[in-house]
């Protein structure tokens, strides 16, 4: 106890700044700049609403990232349950006071921004479970009674989000939670059992799906089923990416997005736009940038001493990776269109806020890597 306290107190401001992972910071910053360029292109080469508010958000939340980074990891650990409960209350708030847009209720009106609590819940759930599995001893992990709480904590927000309805985000939240449980050492048996249960319940779940959700899945299986309707997005996205070729059509020259063939080009299809304008090499650059970020977070997990930090960093890195590849596979026609933003690149304040918050905690793990959390 004493040693730990002494280590912590011995950290000067200079030490803290020196222990920041600069590769990670620079990667995030470069990605931010690229996302601003892409946003500028979606606005047709003019500094319009989307671009300027994206710039503002990026810098605000990049600042928030540093603030979160310098707060002790001990604090984040101790407040994990509270953070989860706070986000859960916000989700409940959406259910009763939420804003409805294009058929789904996802947002809370906070006057200065529309907050999407489901995005925050992606991080909240990881924090909660990381703390939970950090605390229980290894013998208890696979005891049924210790599995009860994680399942409740996992299922409740998922149901809330899925009924907004927002299938994509609820699946991504689940992915983060399941990753923590997996890393903590929950037996493969349990995953297998719940997997089978899920498959068994799938027909029932499908009957609860909205018609547009069903058609999205059918369309994924055969995009040419209805080329001007549900299949339109996938086909146009593939045309845009494919026509980019090796070197792309050039900055601001993406005819598919410029002429409005691309739907949702600010949000879910921002990678398509970038890929059309910068081609194969541009796409590869973005992909490697994301891989670099994921690798740096995993590296933080390797060096941080607390299991809370390890669980959090590994899980967050994996979740981050899943967000990226789900979005890319979606626009490449490898997954159904489920509506998931590309971290940092996509337009959207809540997503940016959640990702920066998550990155901030990971960075906090790096700065306070030798500090015990309890």
């Amino acid at each position: 106890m004493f040693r730990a306290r002494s280590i912590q107190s011995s950290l000067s401001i200079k030490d803290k700044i020196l222990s920041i992972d600069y590769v990670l910071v620079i990667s995030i910053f470069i990605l931010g700049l690229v996302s601003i360029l892409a946003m500028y292109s979606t606005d047709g080469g003019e500094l319009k609403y989307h671009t300027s508010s994206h710039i503002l958000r990026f810098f605000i939340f990049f600042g928030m990232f540093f603030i979160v980074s310098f707060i002790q990891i001990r604090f984040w650990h101790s407040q994990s349950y509270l953070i989860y409960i706070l986000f859960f209350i916000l989700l409940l708030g959406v259910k009763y006071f939420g804003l409805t847009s294009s058929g789904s209720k996802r947002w809370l009106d906070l006057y200065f921004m529309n907050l999407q609590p489901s995005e925050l819940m992606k991080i909240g759930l990881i924090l909660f479970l990381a703390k939970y599995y950090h605390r229980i001893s290894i013998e208890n992990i696979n005891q049924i009674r210790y599995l009860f709480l994680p399942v409740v904590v996992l299922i409740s927000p998922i149901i809330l989000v899925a009924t907004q309805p927002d299938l994509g985000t609820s699946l991504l939240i689940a992915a983060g939670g399941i990753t923590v449980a997996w890393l903590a050492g929950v037996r493969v048996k349990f995953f297998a059992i719940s997997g089978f249960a899920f498959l068994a319940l799938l027909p029932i779940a499908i009957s609860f799906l909205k018609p547009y959700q069903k058609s999205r899945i059918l369309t994924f299986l055969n995009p040419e089923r209805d080329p001007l309707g549900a299949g339109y997005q996938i086909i146009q996205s593939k045309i845009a990416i494919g026509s980019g070729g090796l070197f792309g059509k050039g900055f601001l020259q993406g005819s598919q997005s410029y002429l409005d063939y691309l739907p949702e080009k600010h949000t879910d299809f921002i990678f398509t736009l970038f890929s059309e304008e910068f081609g194969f090499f541009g796409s590869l650059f973005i992909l490697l940038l994301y891989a670099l970020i994921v690798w740096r977070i995993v590296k933080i997990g390797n060096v941080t001493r607390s299991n809370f930090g390890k669980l959090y960093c590994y899980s967050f890195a994996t979740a981050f990776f899943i967000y990226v590849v789900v979005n890319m596979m979606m626009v490449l026609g490898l997954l159904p269109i489920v509506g998931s933003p590309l971290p940092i690149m996509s337009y959207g304040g809540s997503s940016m806020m959640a990702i920066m918050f998550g990155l901030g905690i990971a960075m906090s793990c790096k700065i306070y890597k030798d500090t015990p959390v309890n």
Partner: protein
Amino acid sequence: MLNPSSGNTVIKSKLIGRRMFLLTAAKAVVMVGIIGRLVSLQINERTKYKTLSDKNRFREWKLAPERGVIKDFFDKEIASNEQVYQVHLIPENSKDIEKLFVRLKTILNLTDKRLFYLKRVIAKQKPWEPIIVSDNITWSEFSRLNLFLHELEGVKPVVSVARMYPDNSSAHILGYVSQVSAKDLETKKYLKDLHVPGMSVGKTGLERKLDEKIIGKIGFQRYEVNAFGKRVKQIQINEGQAGESYKTTLDFEVQKYTNELLKDKAAAVCVMDVYNGDIISMVSSPTFEPNEFVHGLKKEYWNSLIKNKLRPLTNKTISGLYPPGSTIKTLVALSALENGIIKPLDTFRCKGKIELYGEKFHCWEKDGHGIVNLRKGIQRSCDVYFYEVARKLGVDRLSETAKKFGLGKKVLNGFIEEKAGVVPNTKWKKKFIGQNWYLGETLHSGIGQGYFQSTPLQLCLMTAQIANGGFQIKPRIIFDEKNNRLRDYIKYKNENPNDPLPTDLLLSNFELKPLFKNQEHINLIKDAMFSSSNEPGGTSYRHRWENKKFTFAGKTGSSQIKRFTEEQRAAEVKQESLPYKDRDHALFVAFAPYKDPQYAISVLVEHGGSGGKAAAPIAKKIIKKVLERHELRKKINSLLGEPV
């Protein structure tokens, strides 16, 4: 407490590390998958997707080309173009098409039927393809439309050009244009890349024959469009190319004059230059109004055309088939002379009829012509004389001569409505009727009845080839400078104004092929035709011109529709008292001036009675008109004769 806890912690972090390793491996696999997909889309299939992207971006609007004009010999436009006001509509630009139609209906006075038709067309085509609501509206409708344009989204007022015929006298030979039909697209290959909404194609006559060249090349405007089909900017424009214009050999003044003469008759007239085959006039009556076809034919007008017993839609000059009647006697006589069957002065006695194997063959002159030789036979058109000549000659030799002079085959190029007619002989009958030839049929053939079928144009060509001294010519209607080598001819004419052209000059300059063995025989026929028109007793003597300038030599003919019964013959029933449908067709062929033949003419009046009474007076007037305009025509031809 610290120790077990820290031991626990170490085991736990090892477990976490192991499981993380598995996840990292999975991530690598997914990364490879995504890169593979990028390679496949952006490298392997990039050409395919680039094409698809361009297909998205560009959209073309085709522009209908302007049709070439058709002019007469004096460069007067006989099929020209006029400015028309049209209303186009692009369905996708209209927010509420039903409401728009209600507005348009009141502004343009559209019928419900038309609206129904338009809606059906819209349902069939792409929403960005324009349709033509009205293709010819008046100026006042057009200005009213422009006044309300701000509330008619999607409607486009268009000033375009369309076919216009200044006069309907040449309707048959020019033909008409109308909207492209499904059948046109199937049968005419050149229309494949040419189809534009609202484009007209030639359906008959010259308009059809020349269609491929006269129609022009299509233009297009290529636009970059956005996902909603809205034009963003024009990338490329190609105005297309107006169709080629054509000059014909027709004389518009003669056409109008002839058409006026034939008014209310079912009749046909052809006039031809005997040296180069230029068709000066070709009129079929009654005519129709070709302008009615350009902007969608009205049903009432169409019905009135097809119900009319005088068959106004048929071009009788080339698709009307008639027995040549007595006009063929010129060829019967020529064939007999050429084959050495008769001598000009050989005579037969005509008693009004002859009998052959119990069948009676009558002469039109009941009391007979007495002693008849070749000249008198043609002059009086004695049937008995030609029965005797034909009997000796035989139908096969006759058919050979008739074919040589252009009967029984198509003589113009590229007119689908042209008919070949029939020149019968023994082989023909065996092949097409399956029976042997009877001698009695030879006698009928000798006076141009029976199986003989010919068009007025063929008879005109036959006469022209006799008139020019027996040389083959090819009728033509498209003016052609290259084959008009008249320089020497005109030089000779200027030096020897009154002499006919020497044969060698004709041959060398016109590459003419003689149709005779002995030109003297041709001259005998021409002389006999002269006597028929200009000597007392001749069948068209009453309608001669005294003036040497207009003197013509002709041959009358009347082709029987229905055989006279013995009772009718006995009662001396006159043609005029027969029902219209049973009357003979009246025919007359001639060439003029007699001394220096320039033009040949054929006149047919359906059910007109006798050729001398019904057809010759018409020919007389037209011959004068044509010869009066001869100097004008010669001036143009002599200009062409000058060395280039």
